Structures are given as structure tokens and as C-alpha cells.
């Protein structure tokens, strides 16, 4: 086997691995969060810790991404339901500050659940 043969085999192996990832691995855990406000929707990877401030009709909502999860840290709403909902990490999960019209949707299908009752 020449070096060129080895390189070809390596490339083919990597290519097949990528195809397996794309086509055969269903129900990936959440890897990205979409944060929506009346101004639009922004997408953030869940593997990069950060704090995000989003403007809504009644003020600024602060969200935090850490450990592959997202949570509402602070919001100008009075009942603080969004803050109390805690960390969200399951694919397909949604949460919102309704008074400030800020919502989050975690992209990725949860392998165990299609919806949550609470």
C-alpha cells in the first residue's frame, strides 16, 4: 500500500463517518438555542458559555448559556416565571418571558420526549 492509498482510505473513512453522523444518527441532543424577540431571532451554540441581553417591549431580558443549557437570569416581568423555570437543556424544549415577548427554543430532538407537561 502506497502513501496515496493510505490517504485515500483515510479520506473515505472520514467521509463515511460524516455521512453516518448526518443520516443515521437521529435525535441529537440540543446543540443550539434560538432566542426570539419582537426584533427577530438569533441562534447561539450551547457549547459556548455566554450571557445575552435581549430587548423586549418592557425592558431587557438577560439569558445565560453554560454547560450545554440555557436559562433566564433576569427579566423585567413581575412574576419571574421565566427565571424560575431554571435551566433548559432538552432538545425541543421551549421557555419564555411572556410579558417581554422573549422566547427560547432548543434545537435538536430529545431522544426520550416529544413534549413536556408542567
Amino acid at each position: 500500500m502506497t502513501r496515496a492509498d493510505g490517504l485515500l482510505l483515510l479520506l473515505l473513512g472520514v467521509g463515511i463517518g460524516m455521512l453516518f453522523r448526518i443520516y443515521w444518527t437521529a435525535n441529537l441532543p440540543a446543540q443550539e438555542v434560538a432566542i426570539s424577540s419582537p426584533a427577530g431571532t438569533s441562534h447561539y451554540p450551547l457549547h459556548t458559555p455566554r450571557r445575552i441581553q435581549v430587548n423586549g417591549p418592557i425592558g431587557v431580558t438577560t439569558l445565560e448559556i453554560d454547560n450545554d443549557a440555557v436559562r433566564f437570569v433576569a427579566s423585567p416581568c413581575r412574576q419571574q416565571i421565566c427565571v424560575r423555570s431554571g435551566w433548559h437543556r432538552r432538545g425541543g424544549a421551549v421557555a419564555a418571558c411572556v410579558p417581554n415577548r422573549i422566547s427560547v427554543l432548543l434545537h435538536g430532538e430529545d431522544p426520550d420526549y416529544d413534549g413536556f407537561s408542567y
Partner: protein
Amino acid sequence: MKQTLIGLGLCALLAWGIWRQPPSSPGVQHREFFAMGTLMQISFADPVPAGLMNRIQTELRAFEQRWSPRGDGELAQLNRQLTQHAQAPLPPVLRPGFVASQQACRSSDGLFDPGMGALVKLWGFDDESHFRTTPPEPETIALALAQRGKLCRAELDAKLSVDVPGAYFDFGASAKGRAIDAIVALLRNNGVHNAIVNAGGDLKAIGQRADRLWRIGIRHPRPQDAQDILASLSVKDGEAVFSSGDYERFFISEGTRYHHIIDPRDGYPATTSQSATVVHTSAELADAAATALFVAGPQRAAEIMGRMGITHYLLVDAQGDTHTSPEMRARLDGLP
């Protein structure tokens, strides 16, 4: 020769992978929007018909205005008339909801009571702008308790008649269920055979997801990092799952937690439960029954659910112990 065969084999496999279609319909499309005072999510396992989401949101806006106890809708106007009179015309569009809620009020022995709207308003849980941080004075609670049972006893014909003026109805504990039933009917009529309608954690299923039933996680009322889901169940076509709990809408005053599920018997937040979950084919009844179950607590859970015709329920009591009907227990996975 051997290397050539291996290379050709891998190339053939790669080509087949590129041209191969993904597994059949594993994906679900989600649509989110604000309505009924919450974030609604519809998950489609079928294609989303063009224009349907706009129609759903239009229907929900009309529904919300109609059933809001405040503003200019039909219920708000009725409430205003009942502050001065013991009798008022009952708008035909409200009548089915009043009849269903009266039935639930009676069968729950008054533990679900939309006639206690004044009490909910007094506690400030009816609207974000009314939210308070201290409990109301006991005297004002006692006055509001005088409204108890008005819907149970009311006469519902072309007119609504109550015993004395001053009734104030708030269907916050059943209107969401009624709205979900209406949206599910609208989806079915427009060719959607597989979807979930989820209104802030209360949901109803249509059909199933690909080759299996929709699977629902019931959130733990006191979640820990290792366990945020209390149990799960697979829901059948047309089943609704509704939960009520003390963990989201509350305030703490002098170390005491005051949540939004008010016991109509004493006018204070019910203290015997952390969460209640009900499964039924009517989302409207499931909504009302989840509230009644929470207020009933473990002592009266089986009795009240039996009276309301609910066979599937799960209650977490104030100590964190779980109580289920045998039918529900048989369908739950992961319950300790």
C-alpha cells in the same frame, strides 16, 4: 488487487450514502407563538398546511378576547352586568363553556370554581399588572369567599341567573383547555393527522409521531440536576395531558410561599399538593380536573377524580410522595 477492491468497496459505500434518503420522517417541525397568556408550540409530524398558522392565531386572539374577564369581550361585559344585577343575558358563544364549567364545578364538589374570579383577582394572579408580593387582608378574603358556589348554583338558559349580584367569573383554569380542543379540531379539519398542541406545558396529541406514539415527559415539581422529569407516558390520539403546580406562579412573603391555585373553601393557596397531572380526551375537562385534583390533595384525590370521570391522574403531595390511579400507574414510565 486487494487494495483496489477495498478502495472500490469504500467508494461504492460512500456513493450509496450520498444518494440515500434520510430515515423516513424522523423530523418534527415546531411553530411557536404567544397566545392565551403563554407561549404556544405546535409540533407537526405532518407537513404544515399553508396559511394554517395565521388562521390559528386569529382564532386564538378572538377566543382570548371572548373569554377574558377584563376588557371588552363577551365575558368581560357579562361580568360588568353581574356586578349590579343577579341576572344577565348569557351570550350564546359563551354558553357551552359555562355549561361545561358548571358541570365540572358540581362534580368536583366546588373545588374547581370559576365563580371565584374575585378571589383570584384579589390575590393578584389574574394579570401580570396585578401581581403582588404580600397576601391580601383576611377580611377581604372573607368577603370574596361569599361568591363561592355561584356557578354551581347558577341557572344557565338564555340568561344567567345567580342568587345575588356581585358575581365575577374567571375561566383561567379551563379556558386554555377549551382553546386547545378548538385548535385540535381546526388542525384535524385542515388535514393535520399527527401533531401536538402545547400551551405552556398543557397539551393535546393528534395521531402519533412516525411509527410510535407521542412521548411526554411530566416535569418534576422540585427538579434536581439529575432529575428534571418525574415520569413519562405515551399519549394516544386525542388525549390531553394537563398539569397544575405551585412552582411557577407564586410570591414569597415573610418566608411563606403563596402560589396561584386558590382553595375555594378557605380563600388561601391550597397546601396539600406540589403538582397534579390529569389525562383525558377533553382538554377542557383535563384543565379543570388538574386544578380540582391539586386542591383536593391526596385525601380526596380518588373521590374527586371519580366524580369527575377522570381515570388517569398523578398527584405529588406536599411531602413529595406520589399518588396515582391504577390506570395511570400502568402507563407511567420512570415513576419511583
